[in-house]
């Protein structure tokens, strides 16, 4: 298999934005809606959107054709929760735009200006078939962290697909910490904030902005109006079973709220209630340790059991890897399939597992009409793989975003080439490019 190699200087220029129309033929085609792969498949992308994908799709005249040679072809993967694109090196705080402990703002914070398409994490994850990601801020001085975005991992300078796509909130132990030390304090903070948002919505001009002495500045209140009116989803990090029920109960107070749970390691124990509330979940995958007292019941079977109970569940990554390793979601999904052979465990079949890293997280975010599958009308994010994308070691061979082919060489590839033979030659290593 050959990765598409390009000279570093020409990165971006070799892939003109005009090339948004393409057909991929002769594919073991995965649509990403939960169904199994079909042989002899074709995807047609015109002007950046999928026109058709399936077994008996004809290619219109004049459309450039990429022959997949029988290889697996899938939608680009959708990272359901991440911090990709706003962090370069976690340990170098200047490069980490996910949190601002010294800021008077909370809900107002908008990650979209901070998304940098040149981030190493974007290149590395694009090279492994991740084409879109949910990018969230971190909470600091409040239970509200701010407004997250949906981004594409393309090489061009226009990375944000949907700015201010959701509000992120934390509850549980972290929420308690941000609110001064307890869960009840977090709920009190939340309730007070909701009063203030309603005040602001009724009469924005007369909202008393007390600046950094308030729980909520004018800008924060403004950012929360679309949340209480249900125009923008509220993603809530919550793990413990009883905490999940408290969060679901918020809909009684604010009926229009479009809740999405993030993490939800004990979700399986209250799956019936989550399903009844029709609240989607972006669940941590393969989380099986009682890492805290909020996740004593954690098990790898969490996602399988929630799915079986009728919950819409996708994979989200909220852990130490969230800024750099979205690519691991393929390994996570493959492991969920492995669980189907483990007695007493609840796994997912291949199609369902693939859906947790494609269509389901997109649907959870309310953008399933645009991303996460090759159903007609979706953005033309297509990946050709050299094997089963859920199996360890499969590589993305060609990556298209909005129908535009993407470069997939990373600086790690360049380091490997330089050092595949570690010894210096006629010149120092620094001259070897």
């Amino acid at each position, binding site marked *: *298999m050959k990765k598409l190699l390009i000279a570093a200087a020409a990165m971006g220029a070799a892939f003109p934005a005009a090339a948004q129309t393409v057909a991929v033929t002769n594919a073991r085609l995965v649509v990403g809606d939960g169904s199994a792969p079909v042989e002899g498949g074709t995807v047609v992308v015109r002007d950046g959107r999928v026109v058709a994908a399936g077994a008996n799709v004809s290619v219109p005249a004049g459309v450039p054709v990429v022959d997949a040679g029988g290889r697996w072809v899938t939608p680009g993967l959708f990272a359901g929760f991440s911090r990709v694109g706003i962090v*370069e*090196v*976690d*340990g*170098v705080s200047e490069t980490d735009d996910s949190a601002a402990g010294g800021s008077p703002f909370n809900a107002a914070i908008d990650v979209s200006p901070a998304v940098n398409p040149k981030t*190493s*994490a974007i290149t*590395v994850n694009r090279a492994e078939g991740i084409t879109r990601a949910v990018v969230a801020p971190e909470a600091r001085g409040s239970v509200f962290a701010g407004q997250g975005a949906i981004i594409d991992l393309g090489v061009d300078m226009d990375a944000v697909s949907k700015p201010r796509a959701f509000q992120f909130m934390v509850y549980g132990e972290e929420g308690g910490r941000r609110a001064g030390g307890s869960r009840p304090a977090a709920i009190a903070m939340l309730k007070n904030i909701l009063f203030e948002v309603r005040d602001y919505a009724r009469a924005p001009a007369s909202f008393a902005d007390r600046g950094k002495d308030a729980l909520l500045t004018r800008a924060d209140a403004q950012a929360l109006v679309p949340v209480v009116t249900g125009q923008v989803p509220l993603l809530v990090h919550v793990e413990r*079973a009883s905490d999940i029920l408290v969060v679901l109960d918020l809909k009684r107070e604010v009926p229009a709220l479009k809740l999405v749970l993030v993490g939800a390691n*004990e979700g399986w*124990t209250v799956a019936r209630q989550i399903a009844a509330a029709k609240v989607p979940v972006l669940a941590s995958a*393969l*989380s*099986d*340790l*009682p*890492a*805290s*007292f909020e996740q*004593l*019941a*954690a*098990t*790898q*079977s969490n996602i399988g059991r929630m799915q079986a109970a009728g919950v819409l569940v996708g994979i989200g990554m909220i852990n*130490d890897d969230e800024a*750099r*390793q979205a690519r691991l979601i393929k*390994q996570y999904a*493959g*492991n969920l*399939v*492995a669980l189907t*052979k*483990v*007695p*007493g*465990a609840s796994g997912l079949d291949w199609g369902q597992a693939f859906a947790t890293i494609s269509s389901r997280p997109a649907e959870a975010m309310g953008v399933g009409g645009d991303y996460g599958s090759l159903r007609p009308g979706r953005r033309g994010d297509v990946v050709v793989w050299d094997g089963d994308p*859920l*199996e*360890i*070691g*499969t*590589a993305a061979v060609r990556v298209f975003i909005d129908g535009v082919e993407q470069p997939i060489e990373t600086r*790690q590839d360049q*380091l*490997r080439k330089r*050092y*595949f033979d*570690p*010894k210096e030659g006629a010149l120092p290593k620094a001259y070897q490019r």
Partner: protein
Amino acid sequence: MIRIIIGTAAAAALAACSATAGPKPKSAASDAPAKKGPGKNKGYDHNPYPSTYKPYPGVPTLLTNVTILDGEGGKIERGAVLFRDGKIVEVGQSIAAPEGATVIDGAGKYVTPGIIDVHSHLGDYPTPSVSAHSDGNEATGPVTPEVWAEHSVWPQDPGFSRALANGGVTTLQILPGSANLFGGRGVTLKNVYARTMQGMKFPGAPYGLKMACGENPKRVYGGKGRMPSTRMGNIAVDRQTWARAQDYKKRWDRYEENGGEPPARDMAMDTLRGVLAGEIIVHNHCYRADEMAIVLDMAKEFGYKVGTFHHAVEAYKIADLLKANGTCAAVWADWWGFKMESYDAVSENLAILEREGACGMIHSDDANGIQRLNQEIAKVRAAAKRAGFVIPEEIAWKWAAITPAKALGIDQVTGSLKAGKMADVVLWNGNPFSVYTRPEKVWVDGALLFDMHNPKLRPVSDFELGQPGSGDVK
């Protein structure tokens, strides 16, 4: 050369004889030879917290028709493995079933030695991760070779069961963290639950010393306004400490040989003396190529050997240097970018070491990663293949078997499926390089301690008893 410390307590005879400085008094005893010291290594007990681990009972077991990766580079298709009384008896193409043996047909399955992880903090940073359990870094000073990770190990850490059932891990080294330049002693454990740490301790395994270079120590102590706060500070403190250790060793060596007043006992220096004497193995957390090169020179300066560099993200840049020094590297498959020193990670790191004939192995440093080390070495193999270097399955499995066993000084007794070795065995329900495969059965010293088909053979630590999810398949 690393000596194995015998499981029974070494003699602790501290002879309080006094050296005679002047001419001997004339008497009947005046022709007796001068009083000798207590003898080499007999000045104090080198094994005061001995292992009390005993293998659990097993039954003679024959696996047949199974693909064998023996952990030393051997592979047998549709072969057979027989173990009995805790030991491997025979590995071959076909073995007659002894009377009364349990015979397991391994068609479509693989058998390997139990996975060995040389870098874990299970027990000393257990789950739940609360501060009352945060016992992995004695971060009150950068030089703490006197602390021993085993004195922090909580044997009820739920993480041990996950490593066994999901990961097929049968032996692991618990290390102090990397806040300190000299973090303290590590301990090698059998992955078998016990009421006490000593009940888990791998019998006869030598001790390790955890050291760290790079960002962590200088960040932790620089942040407190003390040395080290720079990389040069790291090395300066290291060198001064080794110089003190050499002096300590000289005094104790002399006393043990010649007798006289024993020198003052220093727990920190005991550990470093053990390294200088070749008894204790150095495991040095170090990411950058240039820093590893400096550490290798420091080891030569003070006459000790670096056993294994841990993490060694840039090991690929100096594979030739590592090979020339006989120093191993324990690495991840694909961790990168979380610190400046991990910025230059490549997925082919371990493969490049293999290609260059250097010693390399996988490790986890993570309670989740330890559950998937077979998948991690699969990642390396696949990356290598794409880069044009094909590594057969049986060679790659060494990274999780005989090579970490050697790094821990226990390769004489485990780390491969060889007659006479401990029956630390994993039967996988498919090809272990596949994401779709899990351990089906795990034996430690021939005792079946995990069986995916038998809920009774699924350990639940004290902590998890009676909790939400207690006894669940995790």
